[in-house]
């Protein structure tokens, strides 16, 4: 293993708790991750020693708060390889970030007859905003299909990206299949017809190194809570020239330059998109999560998860489960959605919970994908920096027990 998992686990106080008298086996990080002491302590320290509003006080405490908040922005920019810190907007999460693009860039640039390309594997957060703006603008939504292994049908790209395509919205990593999508190739194809590419990196950012320049994406949204940070924070990277042209998102304090009774001028990017008092402590916590992950090294995080998913896929298959998604671990992250014929995912999740094992069961906010897979629901185990092969063994043992009940 490429990470010292035993020492990492000591950073996470939650692993001291028990569930139904059993040690906690947390295999639902794709839903939300646990938080290390370093992140929790950073938030506490902010509230106890630095708390003030940002960008307005002239006193020292406000300067400290502003420095903490803007320092977190620098960390979030660095984390995705953004060269200019102004191209990173703090949001409340990925959904908020994608909706920001919907309400600003998309509203200003989409017209009747234009096409929006999404994929069959999108999370609702990268589907519904596009459905809504398509309805509003009379644009057409198209869905790039997936193959039997849950990989995008890149061979069909020529039919799906056309002169009418104005935006391609795709996840970097699927929250159900674990598929890591060839975003650079999609970006090139989108740019070749003058379209923009919007990337949902909620699932990818915690698990794979990201460089927005290498990927050549126009927008990329990610969430703090899936990458060891607090809930209520996220970041949206946007290409600076696009952000500068875009109309503001929400109106209110912080996002203005000069206000007159009947009109106003806007603050510079990124503040133009950050109306109201932001989630300051959460953003600071997100910055601490970035620093924690940087210290581990994202390449090491990725290597650990490749080991985990390799082990997990084999163990689940050996236990008789159908595992969805690519078999090649180079093309998938640490997410294993699976089904066992005799045990419904919800029954399984309830039975596993009795053993202290947390997995997700359901449609994973991807109902259209469930239909493509031909299932109503799946069970899902997902792995992160603190998970061990022993926990996969515990999962398999509990699955065997569940199978026994239903035999």
């Amino acid at each position, binding site marked *: 293993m490429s990470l010292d998992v035993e020492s990492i686990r000591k950073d996470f106080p939650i692993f001291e708790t028990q569930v139904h008298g059993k040690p906690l086996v947390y295999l639902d990080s794709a839903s939300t991750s646990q938080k290390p002491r370093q992140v929790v302590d950073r938030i506490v320290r902010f509230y106890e020693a630095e708390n003030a509003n940002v960008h307005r006080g002239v006193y020292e405490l406000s300067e400290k708060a502003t420095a903490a908040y803007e320092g977190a922005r620098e960390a979030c920019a660095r984390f995705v390889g953004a060269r200019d810190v102004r191209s990173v907007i703090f949001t409340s999460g990925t959904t908020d970030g994608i909706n920001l693009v919907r309400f600003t860039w998309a509203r200003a640039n989409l017209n009747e007859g234009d096409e929006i390309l999404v994929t069959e594997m999108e999370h609702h957060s990268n589907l519904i905003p596009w459905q809504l703006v398509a309805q509003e603008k009379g644009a057409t939504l198209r869905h790039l299909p997936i193959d039997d292994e849950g990989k995008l049908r890149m061979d069909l790209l020529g039919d799906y990206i056309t002169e009418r395509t104005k935006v391609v919205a795709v996840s970097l990593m699927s929250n159900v299949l674990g598929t890591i999508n060839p975003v650079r190739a999609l970006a090139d194809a989108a740019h070749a017809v003058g379209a923009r590419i919007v990337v949902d990196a909620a699932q990818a950012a915690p698990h794979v190194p990201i460089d927005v320049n290498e990927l050549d994406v126009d927008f990329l949204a990610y969430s703090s809570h899936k990458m060891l940070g607090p809930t209520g924070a996220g970041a949206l990277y946007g290409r600076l020239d696009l952000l500068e042209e875009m109309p503001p998102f929400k109106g209110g304090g912080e996002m203005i330059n000069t206000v007159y009774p009947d009109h106003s001028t806007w603050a510079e990017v990124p503040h133009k998109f950050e109306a109201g008092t932001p989630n300051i402590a959460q953003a600071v916590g997100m910055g601490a999560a970035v620093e924690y992950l940087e210290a581990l090294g994202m390449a090491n995080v990725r290597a650990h998860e490749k080991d985990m998913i390799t082990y997990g896929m084999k163990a689940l298959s050996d236990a008789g489960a159908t595992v969805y998604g690519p078999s090649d671990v180079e093309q998938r992250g640490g997410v294993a959605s699976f089904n066992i014929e005799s045990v*419904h995912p919800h029954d399984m999740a*309830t039975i596993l919970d*009795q053993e202290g094992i947390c997995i997700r069961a*359901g449609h994973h906010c991807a109902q259209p994908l469930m239909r493509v897979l031909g299932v*109503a629901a799946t069970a899902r185990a997902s792995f992160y920096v603190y998970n061990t092969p022993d926990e996969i063994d515990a999962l398999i043992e509990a699955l065997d027990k569940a199978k026994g009940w239903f035999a």
Partner: protein
Amino acid sequence: MVRLSLEELYKEVILDHYRAPRNKGQLDPNDIALERNNPLCGDEIELFLKFDGEKLEGIAFDGKGCSISQASASMMTERVKGLPVKEAGALAETIKRMMAGEEEGDPDVLGDLVSLKGVVKYPVRIKCALLGWNTLLEALEESGRN
């Protein structure tokens, strides 16, 4: 009342009906067919009702989903078949109150159904257990007889 462990709940109550559901399939002819699902889980129930005056003469269900949703619907059809409509409706309301923890549930009145109370311990599964009952209440209302 003795609390069932999860294993007892499954083995003694749920699995019998899940493996051998009663009144499963379509009912034709019927007076009402109503399909409802549990958007969070994907559990689906389609309920078929046939009335004889004010009596629920026939009932059948079709669907797919977790064992609790399907077993509870099976138990429901077994119990309400042949009941006066108003009695069936009142029973569904009683079950809902019991699952909400507002009522103990009288074993003399509810019979086997009282064991559904074992699900109350697993709050996210309550909606599974109630899918059939809620669909029944809606169907009865639609019939104008309840």
